[in-house]
């Protein structure tokens, strides 16, 4: 009775973002995932492993053969890619950050985004709606600063689990740039986390990119060298 009445009471936008961050952010995590890119003609599957801690992350691509051994390192606001075929490490900056990651609907800029929403956005609850049979708060977020990829975001947040089930990402001009749908929500200890996220870049043809979490662990020990440039080669 008490739990139901708390869930039904409308929390503030800030409280919702804090609850989302408790679910989605962690001191560190390890993710083994599959990215299924549904292009206009074919679909491709890319497998990778990622170790992340705070604003640093290291990803190694495992498949397909063409991408195997490609490594990506993010240290705060810097991003490097190591290409084994060329034995070159390239630092990405400027417009290269807006390029698609492996042809997916995700850009490198998306990967650079700090997962901590509460520190970057102001939020207001604008309504409620049902998504996938779950009651959701509709939360509109506006960036506190200019240095974020999306100035406006609209979230449909599960009222009970405080996990977004749907999101729309907008440019400063108000143009809708991307849509995401989060599903297969699973419980990992005290947190809820999606097992499948579908990204759709609204400016691209194709049917979007599925991001499937095969394995995930939170608050894991990450060797120090993995989050340094030494890990790239």
């Amino acid at each position: 009775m008490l739990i139901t009445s708390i869930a039904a009471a409308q929390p503030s936008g800030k409280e919702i973002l804090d609850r989302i961050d408790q679910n989605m952010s962690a001191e560190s995590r390890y993710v083994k995932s599959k990215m299924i890119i549904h292009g206009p003609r074919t679909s491709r599957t890319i497998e990778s492993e990622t170790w992340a801690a705070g604003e640093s992350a290291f990803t190694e691509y495992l498949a397909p053969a063409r991408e195997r051994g490609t490594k990506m390192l993010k240290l705060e606001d810097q991003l490097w890619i190591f290409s084994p075929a060329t034995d070159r490490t390239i630092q990405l900056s400027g417009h290269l950050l807006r390029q698609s990651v492996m042809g997916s609907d995700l850009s490198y800029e998306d990967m650079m985004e700090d997962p901590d929403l509460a520190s970057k956005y102001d939020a207001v609850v604008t309504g409620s709606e049902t998504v996938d049979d779950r009651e959701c708060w509709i939360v509109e977020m506006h960036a506190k600063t200019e240095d974020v990829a999306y100035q406006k975001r609209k979230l449909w947040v599960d009222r009970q689990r405080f996990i977004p089930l749907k999101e729309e990402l907008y440019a400063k001009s108000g143009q809708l740039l991307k849509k995401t749908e989060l599903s297969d929500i699973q419980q990992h200890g005290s947190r809820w986390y999606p097992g499948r996220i579908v990204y759709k870049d609204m400016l691209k043809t194709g049917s979007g990119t599925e991001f499937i979490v095969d394995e995930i662990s939170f608050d894991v020990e990450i060797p120090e060298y993995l989050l340094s440039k030494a890990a790239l080669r």
Partner: protein
Amino acid sequence: MLRFYLKGLFRDRSRSLLPIIVVTIGVTLVVLANSWVTGVLEDMVVFNARFATGHVKIMSRSYFENRSQQPNDLALIGTSALMASLKSEYPEMQWVERIQFGGLVDVPDENGETRTQGPGGGMAVDLLSDESREIERLNLEKSLVKGRIPQTPFEIILSDQFAGKLEVEPGDTVTLISSTMYGAMSITNFTVSGTIKFGTAALDRGGMVADISGIRQALDMTDATGEILGYFPSGEYDDVEAASFAAAFNEKYSNPQDEFSPVMATLREQSNMSGFLDLIDYFKGIIVTIFVVVMSIVLWNSGLLGGLRRYGEMGLRMAIGEEKGHIYRSLIIESVFIGLAGSVIGTLFGLFFSSLMARGIDISGMMQNSTMMMQGVMKAKITPAAYYLGFFPGLIATVLGTVLAGIGIYKRQTAQLFKELQA
């Protein structure tokens, strides 16, 4: 009678010399302007055909719609089968596969870190097959400034200006950062085999040429190509033939419901080439029209002056009973001789000056910031039209001028003639 008119013209030079000089100058200018405009614009068309459009080009329907972006994600796939069909069905045509690509060219230092980088745009062509004529078609051998043509898939030629900006020499390694046809980032090492001067500012700023097999691997375009270009065996573009050829191909191969089905476009339909081709015809029309109008006015004026000078002669001829119509016709016959003489001399002068200008004028210095695909040397071209294009307007303008000036004869009153003669 004709001999009579000719004698009159030769003996009274004031009746022939000035009009012949005027017609000669006019016809010379028409022939020269026509040869110059034709030469410059046709050179642009030929240059674009060789580098960009072919005489016809096959692309996927979506690629064609977005062709200004050269979108390799919309490239044709299964092109080895399509090429085989084209070669067997249209064996007289020359078919070549090309991939346009763009990206960042990154130059590493001794530690593999970025030393310098710059944006470039390139063209992948068949440089390695024995039967390929692309090296000759793109005039690559003669345009080399340093080094040599690529001999392996992962060698590249950079424009000499671009190589200078990146501070690379033949033998150095550069990394091309681009996008695969699936949109993924592509990072591929190439060895600079040589540097080249394209002769057009747009390409000289950041142009590259590499073998298509290397670029296919770099951009993950196995059995795919952005464009298939077709060239007529004569080497000359024929718009009517190209249009019927494209219509037949599209009827057979293209499916409007399938955005990735192949579609053939003629040179005219690509890269604003229709504008250039129309411009050639418009220019010729404009030059001839202006010439006829201006020359007619000048010769009308000169005929009026001649009429004034020959006022007494006309009066006398009418007084002794010559009909006005006969005098009028005799003036027109005289003008035909003048027009013929001026047009022949003018055409000869025009052809002579055009042949001098066919060697070309170097304007590359004025095109440093140009983004047009234009050659740096502009040349006149003598076409069959140059032999008659000035001739007929020269003749028409002279006769028209005389027709207008001669109308004055009909205004003379016979009753006044003897009074005029007495005066």
